[in-house]
Structure formats: C-alpha cells, structure tokens
C-alpha cells in the first residue's frame, strides 16, 4: 500500500510545502533546473510535438481585478512554463480569464514557449471575427496557435472563418469543443466531414465514453485530442481522495490521486493533451509531475479502471 494512502491531496501538499518552508526538507526540492521534460505528444496533422499537460482557465483565472489573485496566477503560470508546459486554453465564456491570462503573459517571458488556445463563443456569426480580434488584444498575442469553436455554437459559420484564417496563415490550428459528454454525435459528424486539427472533449477515468467512437475516429482522421475536466471538476477527488491508492501506483510513479487521474488521461494513445485547471501553485506542480516518469500501458490502464470501479 502506498505511503500516501488515505491522505488527501490538499493535506499532503500543504504538509510538503509547510515542511519545505520550515526548512525540514531541502529547499531545492522544487528546483526547476532539475526537472526533466514532461511527456510530449504529437499533433497528428503536422507532426509538431506539444507537452501532454496543458492548463485550463475556467474559474481559476476569472479573478477580475483582484491584484493578489492576479499575482498568484502569474506565479502559477511561471511554474507551468518552468515545468515545460505550453498549452493554455481559455474562452470568452470564462469571464475575465482571457484578460488575466494576457496580464500574466505580459509579466512573464515565455511567449515563444506558449501554445495559445482559445475559443469563439457566440451564436452571432458576424460577431465571431470581432471576438477573435478582441481575444488577440486580451492575450497580447498576434496569432493564436489554436482557435476552437466553443461547444459547437454556430459552428458552420465560425468554422468557415477559422479555416479562412488558417489558409491566410493567421492561425495555426482549428478545433471544436464540447464538454460534459454532450453533443458527441454532432462532433463526430464534423470530424468526419471537416478539415479540423483538434477536438476538445471531456475524458477522464470515470467519463470514458469517448473511447467508444470519438477517440478512434480522431486517430483515424489524424485529429489531436484535448481532454478537458480530467478531474471531473474536482469530483474525482471528492469521490476517491479518502481511498487508498493501489500498491502498483508506484510502478507508474503515481504519488497522488491527481497523478493517477492525469496519467490515465494522457496515457491514452489518442489523447494529445490534458488541461487541468488550478488556482494553487502546489497543485500546478503536482499536475505537471504527472507528465514525468512511467506512463501506464494498456494493461495498467485496464487495472486503473478496474480499481476505480471497485472503490
């Protein structure tokens, strides 16, 4: 049984951080230069590699003008990039998140490393371009790496705009998104008929429905997959954090449930990147750690789902 069994993620991390601050453990435990590169995966349409752990911004970066919260997000993004992270995903739907991401990027110097991903989210087709222009200003980037159609809203007209932008080299990749397991039928139809580079959907150890059709189809059509809600918005922790990790979790370098859940997601051969969101530096470090070390193979992935099912 793991020594971390029965200890909650928050408690474990706060204890570790407290110990570090108190000088009980070497302070270079989190020294960035000692961190090996995290797992990278290939974007099938181009062969470009990106780190398999990105960052979502839903709720966590919607902090308005709260200066202390903004400063904390700067530290979180700094840690994310120092760990080798690249993809930041946001949306105009997320309140002030895009503006706060732009503020943080302006305070840091990682634009070359950044893989910027945001969304178009409006039922008004004529407003799409204006929203994209606004996003450029909010992020402080001249060109997005990835623009996605949020929840497939008015996707026909927005897709035309995005594909046009891509052909004019104003955009590198085009994608579509869903979440919560909704509108998979429509997503499948678009994947079969449209030249998209990315899909984004909810995939985690409890929500594995995409394994049936969408992930195999993504592989067949050479479409990259971003997995949102890898922790089912924290529900996985509520449900399992008091339960012990299996003994064999150490074989795949899982020290915590967060790493267990994330490794499950990014080890799927058809998943390109997972985008957990966090407002805590310690959680960011823990998330990025999941991209290090052994990844579960098909057998271990099966054991993971069986173990979760047994709890």
């Amino acid at each position, binding site marked *: 049984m793991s020594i971390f069994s029965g200890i909650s993620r928050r408690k474990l991390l706060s204890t570790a951080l407290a110990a570090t601050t108190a000088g009980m453990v070497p302070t270079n435990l989190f020294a960035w230069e000692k961190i090996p590169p995290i797992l990278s995966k290939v974007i099938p349409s181009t062969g470009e590699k990106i780190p398999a752990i990105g960052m979502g911004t*839903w*709720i*966590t970066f*919607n*902090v*308005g*003008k*709260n200066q202390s*919260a903004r400063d904390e997000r700067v530290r979180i993004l700094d840690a994310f990039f120092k760990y080798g992270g690249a993809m930041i995903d946001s949306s105009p*739907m*997320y*309140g*002030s998140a895009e503006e706060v991401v732009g503020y943080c990027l302006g305070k840091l110097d990682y634009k070359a490393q950044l893989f910027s991903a945001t969304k178009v989210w409006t039922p008004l087709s004529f407003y799409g371009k204006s929203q994209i222009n606004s996003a450029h200003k909010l992020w402080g980037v001249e060109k997005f790496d990835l623009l996605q159609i949020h929840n497939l809203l008015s996707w026909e007209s927005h897709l035309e705009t995005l594909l046009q932008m891509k052909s004019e080299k104003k955009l590198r990749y085009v994608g579509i998104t869903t979440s*919560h*397991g*909704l509108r998979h039928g429509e997503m499948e139809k678009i994947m079969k008929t449209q030249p998209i580079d990315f899909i984004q959907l909810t995939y985690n150890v409890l929500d594995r429905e995409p394994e049936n059709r969408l992930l195999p189809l993504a592989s067949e059509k050479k479409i990259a997959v971003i997995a949102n809600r890898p922790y089912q*918005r924290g529900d996985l922790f509520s449900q399992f954090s008091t339960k012990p990790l299996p003994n064999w979790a150490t074989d795949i370098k899982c020290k915590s449930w967060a790493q267990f859940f994330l490794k499950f997601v990014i080890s799927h051969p058809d998943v390109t990147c997972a985008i957990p969101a966090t*407002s805590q530096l310690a959680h960011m470090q823990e998330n990025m750690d999941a991209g290090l070390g052994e990844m579960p193979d098909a057998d271990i992935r099966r054991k993971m789902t069986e173990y979760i099912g047994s709890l």
Partner: protein
Amino acid sequence: MKILGHKLSDFLMFSQEIYRDQIVTLNNFLWPAQIIAFLFSIFLIYSLLVRSQTVRRAANIIYALSWLSAGVLFHYTAYSPVNWLAFVYVLFFALQSILMLLLLRSDLRLHEGNLNRICAFCLSVYGFLLHPIITAALYGGTTTEIWGLHPTPTVIASLGLILLVSRQAFVLSIIPFLYIFVECTLAWELGLYEVLSMAGAAFLFFFTLLCRKYERL
C-alpha cells in the same frame, strides 16, 4: 439536479473568494457612499412609520431608484468583469426600477393588518440593518452589503415596501422572485449562505400575501 446535462455547479464561472472580492472592491471604490445609503435607510424606515403622503411619495421614489443604483453599481461596475450574465441583471434591475416608479406613484397609504405590517417591518429591518451587520460580522467591514449599493439587502427591503404599500404586489414581485431564485440557486452552490436570506424573505413575502388574500389579517 441537472439542467441540459449540466450540474448547477457547472454554471459557476468564479469562486466564492472572487465573488466576495467584488464586494470589497466596490465598497472601497464607493466609500463613503455607504454612509449616505445608510442615512437613506433611516429615512425609509421612518417613512414606514408615518402617514405623510409627501414622505411616502419621496420614499417610493427612493426605493425604486435603489434598484437602479444596485443594478448599475454592483452588477455593472463590480460583477460584470467576472460574470457576463451581469449585464442581464442590470437590465432587469433597471426594469424593476421603472416598474416601481410607475406602479407605486399612487400607492401612498400603508396597508392595514398586524401580520402584514409585522412581516413588512421584519423584511425592511433585515434589509436595512441586519443584513449589513451580519455580512460585516461574518466577513469583515469591507464586505458589508448595504441597501441601495448591493442587491441582497435592496431586494429584501423592497419586498417589505411592496407588502406594505403596493396594490400590485404580484407584478412588482416578479423580477425580485426571479432574481431570488437564480441567485439563491447559485449562492447555494458557491456556499454564499448570507444570500440565502433572500429565499427566507421570499417565503415570508409569499406567506403574507396568501394570508392577505384569504383575509386572515
């Protein structure tokens, strides 16, 4: 409970901490307007005790404008940066303000009936005095929610007025009830339990109206 395949918590786009921070930011920005709002509160409590039509007319206008001020100051200035839906709230608060200005013009007498008056006073005193005290005590002075500047005390105090003077209580309570339903649902998910006082106010309001309807007062 699920709506269109989503849990209620899926609709929350900010944290409890950030919600409270909007109140702190607004209070710092508006200070010392809170004192003026509080003085208006005292006048409005006084207006519920006297039978002067001039006082009643002035009070009704102030009550109506409090919806506009809470809508613009809180929802537009403070809330809209973290919640794009806040613009819808601003519109509804402005609409309620107009409705109150129009419908309370000729409602210059207080309703009779002990239960009616007691409930109306309870709602008013809670909105004007207790809610600010409770929020200050729970979360600190800068998080105090004041009538006319923040929605929760404004809505509750207005329900008291509507009970006491309005002949069209049903029409005037539609927007407050819609707002209470939406906000209390989200507040429950966020753990903003002081906002749930609006649900208690709505229950008291509805109960009193029912009693009045069946002439039990």
